[in-house]
Each structure stands twice: as structure tokens, then as C-alpha cells.
């Protein structure tokens, strides 16, 4: 059994897209109820690593995964596991907000309806919107189109939609890159609050964002053959103030690009 405070354990993970190796020998654990940031230069495999946590790479042609990704001790890549079932435990938020062209209410209720939710739908929708810090802004117009919301509100709606199905983990791939600074800070604040009940893994190009929101940070870079490797993984406070590895130091101080 993995320690109870780890939600994911990645062991010797390797990923290829066709002949190209995208990730090599990644080992790390993701702590429960914490925000873990994955940083690194473009092409280092940050998003690939994130997509391994909910088997999104299965959807990419030619992608091959070796190694283990244990969710609460169970390998999600074992043949016995249904990827759809895995994804229902793991919410995902993307770079651009992608609400459905439906009302605000229906966006949040969607996953619940698909799962045949038997409880009180109104209560569940309100609870999710509250947890996503969006309720006060939309409670008067729940049945209006979600597409009329601002970008930052749409992103929080996507988070609410993910929360509605009660995931254990929320994966975020550059969730703020399309948002203005105020909307960004709201999402960051929300992430800190959500980390009390969920485990969050975020990929970000913005190092300051990683420094602000995360508890743990993983720094990936490319080896000579361009395969992504994990250089350093540790507490965010330590990694940004006194990194152990020269490669990390050079990257976060802008001495290497």
C-alpha cells in the first residue's frame, strides 16, 4: 500500500509518440490535498506527464506508455482498468475554457446527468458553483448561456463542472494562460482553497504562478535526445529559493532557456 498521503505514485514512466521518446524514467509521488506544479521549458513533456494521470494519452495516435501510474496504489494502466472509469475520478481543466454551448446550470449538471445522479440536482449544481467561487456571480442567471460569461468565469465554470462529479484529483493544463491577471489571481486563490479537499496537479509556463500556488514543484527538462526527464522534485519553497540542481537554478533564474 502507498502512504495514505500520496494520491499518485509514478514509477519508471516512459512515454513514446511513435519513435520519439517524450518522457524517460519519471519517478515521483503526488501528495494528497496539495497543489503540485510541473514546470519546465517547452517540449519537456509537462503536458504529456499530466495526461498520463488520466490516460488522456490513450487518445493520441501512436502514443505508448511503459511503467506504472498508481492511483491510490492501483495501476491505472493495468489492462483490467477502464480508462473512462479512471477519468471520472480525475477532473481536467484545459488551457482555454471549454464550456458546452448550454446554460450555466446544464454545464454543471451535465456530468451528473450522464452518471444518472439520483440526488437533488439544484443543490448539487449550487454546491459545485460555490466551491468554484462562481455562485455569487451567476446565481441570478443560471439558465442563461455559459458562453456569455467572461473567460475567467468560464474557466471557473469548467472547474465547477469538474467538481460536480466529485473527483479526487483535478488536473490543470495551463488553466490561466488565456486569462487576464485578475481572473488568474481568482483561479489561483480558488486552487488554494480546493486543495483542502482535492489533489491538484497543474502544468504551467508561468514560474511565478507555480511559486504562488503550489506546495510541491517538479522541474522537467529535455535530455540531449529531447526526451523529457525529471530534474528535481521538492517543496516549492525550497525549489524556488535554493534548488539542489544546477539545471533547475539556471532555468528559474533565466540563465538557460
Amino acid at each position, binding site marked *: 500500500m502507498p502512504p495514505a498521503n500520496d494520491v499518485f505514485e509514478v514509477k519508471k514512466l516512459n512515454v513514446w509518440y511513435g519513435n520519439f521518446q517524450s518522457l524517460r524514467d519519471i519517478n515521483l509521488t503526488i501528495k494528497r490535498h496539495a497543489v503540485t506544479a510541473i514546470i519546465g521549458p517547452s517540449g519537456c513533456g509537462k503536458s504529456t506527464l499530466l495526461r498520463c494521470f488520466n490516460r488522456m494519452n490513450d487518445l493520441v495516435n501512436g502514443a505508448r506508455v511503459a511503467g506504472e501510474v498508481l492511483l491510490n496504489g492501483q495501476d491505472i494502466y493495468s489492462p483490467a482498468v477502464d480508462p473512462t472509469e479512471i477519468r471520472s475520478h480525475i477532473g481536467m481543466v484545459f488551457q482555454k475554457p471549454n464550456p458546452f454551448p448550454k446554460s450555466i446550470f446544464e454545464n454543471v449538471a451535465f456530468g451528473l446527468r450522464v452518471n444518472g445522479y439520483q440526488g437533488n440536482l439544484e443543490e448539487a449544481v449550487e454546491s459545485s458553483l460555490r466551491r468554484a467561487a462562481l455562485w455569487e456571480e451567476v446565481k441570478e442567471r443560471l439558465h442563461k448561456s455559459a458562453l456569455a460569461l467572461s473567460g475567467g468565469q468560464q474557466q471557473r465554470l469548467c472547474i465547477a463542472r469538474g467538481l460536480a462529479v466529485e473527483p479526487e484529483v483535478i488536473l490543470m493544463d495551463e488553466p490561466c494562460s488565456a486569462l487576464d491577471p485578475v481572473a488568474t489571481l481568482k483561479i489561483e486563490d480558488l486552487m488554494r482553497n480546493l486543495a483542502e479537499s482535492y489533489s491538484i496537479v497543474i502544468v504551467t509556463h508561468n514560474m511565478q504562478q507555480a511559486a504562488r500556488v503550489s506546495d510541491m514543484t517538479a522541474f522537467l527538462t529535455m535530455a540531449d535526445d529531447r526526451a523529457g526527464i525529471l530534474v528535481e522534485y521538492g517543496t516549492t519553497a525550497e525549489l524556488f529559493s535554493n534548488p539542489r540542481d544546477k539545471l533547475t537554478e539556471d532555468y*528559474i533564474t533565466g540563465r538557460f532557456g
Partner: protein
Amino acid sequence: MEIRTVFHKKLREIQDDVRVMGSMVEQATSRSIEALRERDLKRAGEIIADDLKINRKRFEIEEKCVQLIATQQPMASDLRAIIGVLNIITDIERIGDHAEGIAKIVVMIGDEPPLKPLVDIPRMAEKANDMLHRSLDALINHDATSARQIAAEDDEVDNLYNQVFRELLTFMLDDPKTITRATRLIWVAHNLERSADRVTNICERVVYMVTGKMEEIGVSKY
């Protein structure tokens, strides 16, 4: 490939400023001892007035550090370098205050005849200045080994202080009429002893900047 060239150039400029401020303070210390030796009240007055320039230099450097933090979000060794400088300029400024303190004692002494020729007090000043100068070399060269070494040399200044104290005590025991003059010289020596202690603080900051570890080095006997 270095990316943040502008930022790193500014960081080097700040370190150059610290060096300039260090030179101002070194000069104030050695001039204060000259003023003491020569009973030069005019020079003592200049040192007291010049302390304002040192204080202003400190604010100027502090301002530059704050601006770099606010606008550049420095990380890792860059962040430690700026935080280190912020601490170091406080200590340099205080060393300047000790020089000013000596100048004020010179004014107090006025044209009283010297109690004895100055021997150990100038040696203390020289040593403290040398330690300050080399601690700022260590800062600029990112040299934690030298910084630790320099901090250890504080013992030499402490020993000199002890020697000065004991010697002046014999004067006071022999002839109570010397008490005022001897006490003032002890104040001078005390200022110098404190200056060297400040240098050990600077050395601790250099070690932190280089290694990321906060450690107490060279605990003073006084």
C-alpha cells in the same frame, strides 16, 4: 545561453554599489582614527556630516533592490543575492555609525592631551577595515569559504579589544584622574570591536547567498 541579461546587469550594478558604500565606510573608520590621533576636530566634524551620505547610499541601494524584486520576480540564487544585499547594507551602515561614534568621541575629547600613544586601537581599525573589505570581495566573488575564514578572524579583533581594555584599566587603577580619558578610549575600542562583529554578519549573509543555508558563524566573545 543567458536570457535575463538586463536583470543580471542590474544585479551586478547593485553589488558594485555595495562595494562603493563599503569603501565610504572603510574611509570613515580610518579617518576617525586619524582624527583621534591628531586631535583633528575639523576632520571629526566631516566624518559626522559624511555619515548622512552613507545613510543615503544605503537607501539608494535598498530602493534598487525593492524595484528589482517588484519588477523582476527574482528566484533562487538571484533572490538570495538581493535579500543578502538588503541585509548587508544594514550592517555596513551600522559600521558607518560606529565610525561616526568614534568621531563624536574625538569631539568630546577635544584638545585634552593623549593618555598614551595609540597602538592597539589603530590595529583594531585596520583589522576591522581589512575584514570588511575582504567580506565584500567574498560577496562579489560568491566565495563562501573566504567568508567563513574572515568571520573567524573576528577573534583577533576581540583579543585586541581585551588587550586595550586591560591596559587602560591599569592606567585607571594607577591614577583615577585618567578615568575619563581612558573610558573614552575604551568607547572607541568598543566601536571598533562592534564593527568587526558586523562584518561577521556580512560573512554569514555571503554564506547564505552562496549556499542557501543560514548558519551562524564566528560567535563573538563580546
